[in-house]
């Protein structure tokens, strides 16, 4: 019992045990940070990290490329505003964030395809869904192609920019939050048209770890 070596081993074991406990607590606390993929069948996954397009003509080799498909002018202008303002991260990260009106949108050259149509009375002003190849598991699931749909059925109680910021945020991998200083609030509470600093930190850590 009074063997100093045995006591040290027990103390070492205790330290390791406590360390594992702290690690476990940290894991639980960190669960709300990261993608929140819906691990359903048929490849349906929402709010997952995008897979940047590799290659391109600029100095940036990885791209988050948004293609607008037949959007009404008002929607196109607001999506452009969101890309230029809310997610203008091109000069922060070695990741080119771009948008364009396009006649095509597919897995090989796009990250997000954006549509605005009258989808009927479904209670949503917009939604995001992975339609490309989903890889991995929550909270690190990735998707090669997202579709963002804006529903023009009825004027929503919040702005088009807010909806665009929200849905394009899902395409980055951001999840819903109760915070009201971000466009990622589930019900648009707060009226914010930009992501929070917390959201930007999340994107930084996901896409450019050196800046994390």
């Amino acid at each position: 019992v009074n063997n100093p070596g045995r006591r040290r081993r027990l103390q070492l074991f205790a330290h390791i045990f406590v360390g594992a406990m702290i690690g476990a607590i940290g894991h639980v606390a960190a669960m709300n940070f990261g993608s929140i993929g819906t691990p359903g069948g048929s490849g349906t996954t929402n709010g997952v990290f995008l897979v940047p397009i590799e290659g391109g003509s600029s100095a940036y080799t990885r791209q988050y490329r948004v293609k607008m498909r037949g959007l009404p002018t008002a929607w196109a202008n607001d999506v452009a505003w969101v890309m230029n303002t809310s997610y203008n991260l091109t000069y922060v990260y070695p990741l080119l964030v771009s948008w364009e009106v396009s006649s095509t949108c597919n897995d090989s050259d796009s990250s997000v395809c954006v549509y605005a149509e009258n989808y009927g009375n479904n209670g949503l002003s917009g939604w995001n869904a992975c339609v490309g190849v989903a890889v991995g598991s929550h909270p690190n699931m990735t998707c090669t192609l997202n579709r963002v749909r804006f529903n023009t059925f009825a004027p929503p109680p919040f702005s088009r920019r807010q909806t665009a910021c929200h849905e394009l945020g899902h395409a980055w991998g951001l999840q819903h939050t109760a915070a009201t200083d971000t466009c990622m609030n589930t019900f648009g509470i707060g009226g914010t048209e930009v992501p929070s600093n917390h959201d930007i930190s999340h994107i930084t850590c996901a896409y450019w770890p050196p800046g994390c």
Partner: protein
Amino acid sequence: MFNIVKIVSGLISCAAVFGLLSSIRGSQLGTQTTNEVFWKSFRVDGMEVEHFESLSDMKKSADLVIEGALIDFRLSREIRTAIGEDSVAYGLATVRVSRVLKGQVKAETVPVEFLMPDSPEALSSRVADLESTLPAGAIVLFLRDKGGRESGLYRTVNSWGLWASGGRGVIAPLVEGSPEADNSRSYVAELAGISDVAGLSQSIANGK
């Protein structure tokens, strides 16, 4: 000897804390029921137009609140837009009504549409899966009459508009996160002491 006792008691304390954490996490995740598995197929990462501070507010706003059971599910319609590569599908759930908690029903069943987030390529297999795995048990629905060209069809008022019995008691399986992450904290207080759908139904009938 005293040090050994201290170390051992410390380890026991840590184990107790770990056990407590595990049980909390376990209860958060719960045991998935068929209802949970079935309805989570319709979870959508979207921006919802309607939000209610409480379930009583949700009841006041809803056109129809019912308790019933799902007896059929099939593809309702597919909206093909001018943009060729895209389409959006809705599934049609037929719910046999066992209790009307608000509003009036015209028949013993109510048709409820759900947006299906699946890609067009995956749609047919998903519908087949759902058709063959209808969950048993009662559900409570807070419904909105779609009206207009969709007259005769209902939708849930939002993702909190469908309740079923689950591993954690009464659950809202269309909701991705927790009430705390969704500006719906007050629901937790309203559901205190309610362990199943029958209890929720009675609570709503009593005026909550």
